């Protein structure tokens, strides 16, 4: 019966596949190819082997932004997920105005990085203004400013996922634990946490990849100032491409390394947290 249906490939799949090929597949393959070339435009390339990669590793800006992104991601992982989980616990209780609270905490996530970055900078620079400085004054200000911004943006999103996870915990299990004399904390630790492990897997995955790939917020809030000390990997790659003449090949090599790093970190994290998932 499906024989006739298969002939409809050009109608059903081809348009999407063509767009996917143009926007993603070709650029992806070209990107890998270009990372082994020195070039100023794509029509003027010169094969250089691994040179771009060795130059990337020797570039202090790249290694600095790698450290910055790694630290930023680790700190965000903790702040975002801790706050989101506590909020989810509070907002799955029977309270007045639960939906309103959920809506408010979720709201920053709807606003895009650029707009959110400038909205946030008014507050942060206003506060720092009392001491006569702004966020570009020192790298630590920029770092914690970005952590606060990231936490503000991602917490509500993760909270929604944790709420869905907590609502799936069978109430019979929680009641059974109470009858067995478990306190609130031990119920949380021994019953709820193992059962929401799938949500924890997803939330840590999303926080990890989002924080690592952060670009818009970085550009809007600090733009790397002072002296590129608050520049995450994505922003460093962008600046290598478009800000340093003769470095395009290195920029592409950095982008390939960035991709491999994100894939590896995400893969390891999924493997680690998936092992701890249990069935109710």
């Amino acid at each position, binding site marked *: 019966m499906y024989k006739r249906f298969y002939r409809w490939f050009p109608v059903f799949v081809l348009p999407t596949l063509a767009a996917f090929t143009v926007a993603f597949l070709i650029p992806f393959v070209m990107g890998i190819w270009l990372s082994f070339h020195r070039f100023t435009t794509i029509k003027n390339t010169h094969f250089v082997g691994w040179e771009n990669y060795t130059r990337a590793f020797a570039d202090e800006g790249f290694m600095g932004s790698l450290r910055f992104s790694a630290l930023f991601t680790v700190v965000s992982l903790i702040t975002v997920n801790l706050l989101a989980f506590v909020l989810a616990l509070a907002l799955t209780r029977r309270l007045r105005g639960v939906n309103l609270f959920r809506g408010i905490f979720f709201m920053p996530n709807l606003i895009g*990085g*650029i707009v959110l970055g400038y909205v946030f900078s008014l507050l942060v620079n206003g506060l720092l203004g009392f001491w006569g400085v702004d966020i570009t004054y020192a790298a630590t200000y920029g770092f914690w400013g970005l952590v606060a911004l990231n936490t503000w943006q991602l917490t509500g999103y993760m909270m*929604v996922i944790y709420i869905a996870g907590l609502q799936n915990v069978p109430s019979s299990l929680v009641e059974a634990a109470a009858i067995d004399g478990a306190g609130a904390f031990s119920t949380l630790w021994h019953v709820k946490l193992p059962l929401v492990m799938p949500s924890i897997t997803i939330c840590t995955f999303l926080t990890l990849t989002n924080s690592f790939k952060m670009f818009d917020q970085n550009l809007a809030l600090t733009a790397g100032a002072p002296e590129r000390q608050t520049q995450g990997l994505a922003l460093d790659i962008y600046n290598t491409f478009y800000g340093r003449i003769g470095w395009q090949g290195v920029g592409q090599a950095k982008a390939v390394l960035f991709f491999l790093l994100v894939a590896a970190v995400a893969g390891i994290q999924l493997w680690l947290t998936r092992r701890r998932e249990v069935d109710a």
Partner: protein
Amino acid sequence: MKTRRTNLMLIALLLLLAAIFLLPVLLVVLNSFKSRLYISAAPFALPDGDTFVGWENYLTGLRSAGFAAAFGRSVFITVGSVLLLVVGCSMTAWYLARANGWWPKILYLLFVFSMIVPFQMVMYTMTYVVGQLELDSVVGILPVYLGFGSGLTVFILSGFVRGIPRELEEAAMMDGAGPLQTFFRVIFPVMRPTAVTVSILNAMWIWNDYLLPYLVLGTDQKTIPVAIQIAMQGAYGSTDYGGLMAMLVLAIIPIIAFYLIGQKYIISGVVAGAVKG
């Protein structure tokens, strides 16, 4: 009694936290009604007789940076891309779910694979390819978004299509309906809730996207995020903060309205996107 006390304390804490979460946005709204001279000097002061300027910032903001045109472009690009994505990807997802053999599987894996690749990996080469094909226009960017969004969209829709029983479409085909008719009359209506969810996820991404439209369209055809970034860079000292505050508010309002209308779908979209991820 004890739970009642803890609940009250909890509500007090939540109120405080909610106030902190709302503060940055409220501050921008507040400052959008102040004269530009008083914004960076005293951002926390309420507007008073001297500093209150009414809607002036909104008028200058709209005029100066071509913000009205940027708004129109953002709406067009978001709506157009989302329509293409939903129709294109649901057809693709259905076909791939029903077709046998190795190549539909490979294709599906390629779509999934594209989701973990950071944009920086392809931004330079994509800009080149898109330029060569002369897709660097407000209309041309629509297929680019179809390509970039297809990974997530095909992925989420495929998960749903696999759950649709084949008997449904086989009955339609038995009655002599062609594949297109079967799809739009039988399959697509069943997919609708998931299609709405996936549309919302894509709309939020495209409306807020900065780097892709900046690289593809440049500064001549600004979208809202690009317009705001340009207005802001456009300089320390000479930046019209009043106009900027108004632009920020105008950029946020449609999102909030959208959220209030589609709250149910947005929340289920977040959960659906997460479970599949």
